[in-house]
């Protein structure tokens, strides 16, 4: 929980007149928590370094006393944890956790406003912590007295220690900050540039950094290095977005003249124009074309500004959505100008439509493989149970789920069934991509050929679940492994369910990159074994039922006793018996089945000559018929597509 960023240290915090006191106090607290200023309350406007300072404080404190129990979190997170503990009735654990902390750093406590319940919990916590000499550090964007609607007792506690503010950096500090940033990032400017930039009154350090970035970008773009006179042109009005009257150590007369001008400007600036101007500055800064708003500025009488701005921002929102949809299909479209011009929404729509039209959604699971038609027995019980968990909570339980087992035991069926169930449960809202590894490879090659790799990737990344059948086919295919690695990570990081099937466990897959293997192993690897007798019986029964045949229990029992290596073999046997029965015009009895499967030699029953007449026995010869096509299901699906 003590997630103070290692970048936040004292040695890279530039000290100036505006923050000297705050830094000294923070240092003192870090060096002996609980002993000096308790609580320490630091406030300042946004972007002046509160978070950096308290981060550095936590960092130094831990460095000096590694065993110190430090908790660093924002008030928001604190409230969230409090609520979670209340709803889980674990308030005791919560209290225990916080009441034993040595250094508690709470960021952004101004959000306390009105949160009575949180306030009373904090009051208790503070009393306990302070009573036992433990340190509390808080930051806020305003002093405690200005946080509205706070319990008086809590307020006195907040204000009871030391309250320091961080002011805006002065000219010299700004130069120091800029120099240090340049050093950090290896930037070089001509002499005078940094000084000129520092002369611009930025309201906070973040804006200053932004301006520096702008200069760096300009310099990187152009051939020539920029000079001091160019600075203001480049930074322009960017630097002056703060509303405050610039603070400076000037004589009274000039200062009061400034204030008067400020008042006069505030009084006389035309509100509607200022608002449009603000909108222009804002959206312009976001990179959108603002010609529409600029034209409105030229009007003699005020237009309906609310409607104008609302319309404009709605158009921008619409553009953003369109851009998102288009880039999901083809990332290269993101740079397109039409997504930046609210007056060209139609063009943007057209472009998005075209992009989407050229885009086919990934192949989903085959509806032929339903979950309810998947028979469960001891040999696959584990896999099925896991599958049901995955269906109920995709992406969270077992991710990735690797199903392995020899050919024909039902991996493809189960994987597709999971996909189908996820689809059903989501009411069709999910997109599930489900492909055989061979298809995946072929698609990739095609995409490389057509130069549509981006689109192909986006397609898989956009899906909500990824199922890859027979993943062992990617062994030895480096490029595919690369791509799968990226797709895998993208899906995994987004919490999307990944299901893989393979004919052997990942650790036995040869020619598979370690980074993929370890990822495959990272979820759950479960085997589907060859069907046991019980399962065989169930499958036989279902198969006969599906063909609307009746098979007596003794037939099923007889068949189930015969060992098979796969479900596919069972289906083949049922096929064969049904065909033979059709040909012979007989019902399926034990003797018939036995004769059929074991041949006339061992069967006492009379040979059924008519069948020989009508059908070449060649076709019924076990030796001549290939029942077990390797991977036939995948091939058939492929053909059907």
């Amino acid at each position, binding site marked *: 929980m003590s997630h103070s960023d290692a970048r936040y240290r004292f040695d890279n915090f530039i000290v100036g007149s505006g923050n000297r006191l705050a830094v000294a106090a923070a240092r003192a607290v870090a060096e002996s928590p609980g002993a000096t200023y308790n609580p320490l309350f630091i406030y300042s406007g946004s972007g002046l370094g509160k978070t950096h300072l308290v981060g550095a404080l936590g960092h130094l404190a831990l460095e000096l006393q590694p065993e110190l129990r430090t908790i660093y979190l924002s008030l928001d997170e604190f409230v969230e944890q409090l609520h979670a503990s209340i709803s889980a009735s674990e308030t005791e654990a919560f209290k225990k956790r916080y009441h034993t902390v040595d250094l508690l750093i709470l960021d952004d406590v101004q959000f306390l406003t009105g949160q009575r319940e949180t306030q009373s919990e904090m009051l208790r916590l503070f009393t306990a912590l302070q009573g036992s000499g433990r340190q509390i550090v808080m930051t806020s964007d305003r002093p405690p007295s200005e946080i509205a609607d706070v319990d008086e007792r809590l307020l006195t506690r907040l204000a009871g220690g030391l309250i320091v503010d961080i002011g805006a950096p002065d*000219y010299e500090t700004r130069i120091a900050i800029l120099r240090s940033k340049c050093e950090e990032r290896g930037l070089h400017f001509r002499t005078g540039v940094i000084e000129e930039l520092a002369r611009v009154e930025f309201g906070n350090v973040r804006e200053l950094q932004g301006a520096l970035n702008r200069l760096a970008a300009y310099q990187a773009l152009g051939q020539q290095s920029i000079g001091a006179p160019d600075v203001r042109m480049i930074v322009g009005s960017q630097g002056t977005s703060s509303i405050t009257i610039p603070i400076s150590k000037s004589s009274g007369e000039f200062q009061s003249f400034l204030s008067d001008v400020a008042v006069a*400007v505030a009084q006389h600036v035309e509100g509607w124009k200022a608002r449009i101007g603000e909108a222009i500055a804002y959206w312009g800064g976001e990179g959108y074309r603002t010609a529409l708003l600029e034209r409105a500025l030229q009007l003699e009488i005020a237009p309906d500004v609310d409607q104008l701005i609302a319309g404009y921002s709605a158009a921008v929102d619409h553009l953003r959505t369109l851009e998102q949809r288009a880039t999901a299909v083809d990332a290269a479209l993101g740079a397109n100008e039409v997504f930046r011009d609210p007056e060209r929404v139609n063009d943007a729509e057209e472009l998005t439509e075209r992009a989407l039209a050229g885009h086919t959604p990934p192949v989903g699971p085959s509806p032929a493989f339903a979950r309810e038609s998947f028979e469960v027995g001891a040999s696959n019980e584990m896999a099925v149970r896991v599958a049901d968990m995955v269906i109920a909570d995709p992406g969270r339980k077992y991710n990735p789920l690797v199903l392995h087992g020899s050919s024909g035991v039902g991996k493809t069926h189960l994987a597709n069934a999971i996909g189908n169930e996820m689809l059903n449960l989501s009411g069709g809202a999910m997109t599930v991509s489900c492909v055989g590894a061979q298809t995946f490879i072929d698609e990739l090659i095609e995409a490389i050929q057509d130069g549509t790799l981006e689109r192909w990737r986006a397609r898989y990344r956009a899906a909500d679940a990824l199922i890859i059948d027979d993943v062992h086919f990617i062994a030895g295919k480096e490029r595919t492994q690369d791509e799968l690695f990226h797709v895998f990570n993208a899906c995994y990081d987004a919490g999307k369910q990944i299901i893989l099937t393979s004919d052997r466990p990942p650790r036995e897959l040869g020619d598979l990159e370690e980074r993929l293997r370890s990822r495959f192993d990272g979820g759950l690897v479960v085997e589907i074994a060859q069907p046991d007798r019980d399962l065989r019986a169930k499958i036989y029964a279902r198969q006969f039922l599906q063909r609307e045949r009746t098979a007596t229990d003794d037939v099923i029992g007889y068949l189930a006793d015969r060992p098979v290596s796969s479900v596919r073999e069972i289906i083949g046997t049922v096929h064969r018996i049904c065909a033979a029965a059709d040909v012979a015009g007989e019902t399926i009895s034990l003797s018939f089945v036995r004769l059929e499967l074991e041949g006339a030699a061992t069967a006492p029953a009379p040979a059924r000559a008519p069948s020989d007449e009508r059908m070449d026995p060649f076709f019924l010869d076990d030796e001549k018929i290939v029942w077990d096509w390797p991977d036939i299901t995948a091939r058939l699906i492929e053909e059907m597509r």
Partner: protein
Amino acid sequence: MARPSGPPRAGGASNRSASHGTLSLVNYSTREITCKIVYYGPGRSGKTTNLHYIYGQVPEDRKGTMVSLATQTDRTLFFDFLPLDLGAISGFSTKFQLYTVPGQVYYQTTRKLVLQGADGVVFVADSQARQLEENIESFQDLHANLAEHGINAREVPLVIQYNKQDLPKDLILSVPELEDALNFRNVPHYEADALHGPGVFETLRGISELVLKRLSAGTSGGR
């Protein structure tokens, strides 16, 4: 500091007025306010002294360069220019440009040029009794020049400063007397001692208020 608009050149004007038909005091889309204020008056009335005093009060970190130009080219330009960058005010990057015109009668062309695009005028009158004629002449000259620029003298923001009020009473005219002689339009007036400061900022404040009032009166500043 780079000069934001530079001195007006012969045949041209400050950059913002050259390209636009109307002179925009405020640019809402770039969020800038630029005020051009011209100190007008007879020679040696204390216009440059006003600027010097203001310059002296500007804090170091926002001091631009005060430019006093005495250039010999095809025609004579002789004036002072003081850029004041007031920083961000109400979200607007605000700049004041203070100019003086040469008071001597023979710099007529320069005066006309400097006056071009002015958002407001401070008339600095010399309170000395013996300078009354020069004051009146210069004041008429101002109106003539404004008219030549097509500026309605009744509408342009104008204040009058009666400078050198610190001089012995027997040398100067009283304010009511000066008012009678000059202020027939009844514009705001200020007594001043520009050399030592009293009245300088009051005058600047007065003209600034008049100029900034025009922010709400439309976009055109000067005509």
